[in-house]
């Protein structure tokens, strides 16, 4: 079933995440140091497919919208996210409400979107796009300069700043009063985003769960949100084919929700076959990897 996702400036109709795309997300986030470029390219391609928007559109989404889209896709495919937290040497299971996480994050967008006006010059300051974050920059605030407009003799001249290199040229030519205001806005944004802790609403203050507008943070959250071990996914596809007699290609085309349903169903069937008195050749499957979702 399709679902709607509300972004800062747009509403997108998204299709559900398919198992083959889910597998790609698990693959590109696999390991201790996944490659940032591969991660972004893979996720952008999947988002483009799910939203039916061009790859260019996806790469130009600001990172907060991108993160919100990731949260919505996870929430609509797999539901909320389970976390195990430790406080006062005790372990707690926490179900992180991803919709609340999205709401908190979205509210930040308004804080960091601003227009700096000085005389006849205006500078639009906005959270950077994925594309800009992937570019090298000497200073982080340069990627926040989105566009500028000069009004001269009642005529408006606008420039869209698409690269950090252009932003640096532009920044260097600005009067210091404006450039210092850009830095001030950036510092205020950093301060407000680092103060935000998604765990504080659950009474956890010692542990921090904060999203920062960087590719590294996005990757870290992608690993947290899509944390099923890759081998478990492969095993489940195998068992659904082998024991469930389902075509592997068909399984990969299922939505993640449907896949989980069939995995659950197969688990029940295997469990009943393994119950006392039943003699079944598949009885050892329960002890193997897969069919059992591992908690992290």
């Amino acid at each position: 079933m399709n679902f709607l996702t509300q972004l800062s400036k747009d509403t997108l109709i998204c299709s559900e995440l398919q198992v083959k795309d889910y597998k790609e997300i698990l693959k590109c986030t696999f390991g201790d140091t996944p490659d940032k470029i591969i991660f972004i390219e893979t996720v952008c391609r999947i988002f483009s497919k799910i939203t039916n928007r061009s790859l260019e559109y996806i790469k130009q989404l600001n990172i907060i919208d991108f993160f919100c889209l990731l949260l919505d896709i996870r929430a609509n495919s797999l539901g909320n996210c389970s976390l195990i937290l430790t406080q006062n040497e005790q372990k707690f299971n926490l179900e992180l409400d991803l919709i609340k996480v999205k709401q908190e994050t979205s509210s930040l967008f308004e804080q960091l979107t601003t227009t700096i006006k000085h005389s006849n010059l205006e500078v639009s300051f906005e959270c950077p796009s994925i594309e800009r974050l992937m570019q090298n920059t000497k200073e982080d605030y340069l990627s926040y300069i989105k566009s500028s407009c000069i009004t001269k003799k009642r005529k408006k001249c606008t420039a869209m700043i698409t690269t950090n290199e252009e932003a640096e040229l532009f920044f260097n030519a600005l009067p210091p009063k404006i450039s210092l205001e850009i830095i001030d806005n950036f510092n205020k944004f950093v301060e407000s985003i680092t103060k935000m802790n998604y765990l504080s609403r659950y009474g956890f203050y010692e542990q921090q769960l904060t999203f920062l507008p960087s590719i590294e943070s996005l990757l870290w959250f992608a690993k947290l949100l899509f944390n099923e071990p890759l081998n478990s996914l492969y095993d489940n596809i195998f068992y659904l084919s082998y024991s469930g007699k389902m075509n592997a290609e068909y399984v990969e085309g299922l939505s993640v929700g449907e896949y989980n349903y069939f995995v659950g169903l197969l688990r029940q069937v295997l469990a009943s076959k393994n119950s006392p008195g039943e003699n079944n050749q598949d009885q050892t499957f329960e002890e193997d990897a897969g069919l059992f979702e591992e908690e992290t």
Partner: protein
Amino acid sequence: MSTENKEFFELLNSIANEQTFKLNLLGHEEESVVCKQLTTSQLKELIKTAVDSPLTQAAFNSTVTKIFKESLTENPGFKLNIIDRLLFILETRTHSLSPTKIVEVEGKSITISFEELKKKLKQQIKKNNNLFINSSVTEGKITISFGIPSIETEVQLNEELYKNVQFNLEDMEELRKVIGEAFINEIAKSLNTITIDDKILDLSSGTFKNRLKIVESLPASLIQKVIEYIESYKKIISDCLTIEGYTVPIDSTLFTVR
């Protein structure tokens, strides 16, 4: 870069050229020049000089001189000196950043008003006008003329002697040497011409090293007059820059906002 953005950048630069301020140069009989406001790139250059040697301030002086020249909308037609540059520094600080700055000195908060500093400087320069115009002194056949050092002479000094030189100010021997050299350099900077009989030697025509050789061969009594002159005008400037016992440093810290 797209054509639209090229046009935009040209427009931005043209606006920067239009945002100017008038700078009254008091040492030149009320002459004035028009200066463009500081750009962020120039501000960055100034802040980078924070690692400058506190004794020579060569990097800051060279950078601010370069920016002063870039800021002028047209050639003034006369030699600019280090007092003109000081006035430019205070004026551009006011126009480009803010007219005041708060500093913490030994737990006390002092507000520096650049308008007040300029006002004091104007009054004192007018009052002691003779110190800010060229003077001469004669002993026997030798006449030397001196005045406020021109920015060109100072650039020459920085380029020839201080550029790419790192001083170890922890080493007392080296510190003594640097202070001694800086003292001689100050004298050499202030000299304009040496006249012996009818022959005039314009010191600006040679290298700074040559200038130093000539200074070293001048009679001590003549040099003493130059030292007294330097001390007098520097004291006036220093007094003008002092607020509540705190002397405002004319260096990169003036352009930092925090």
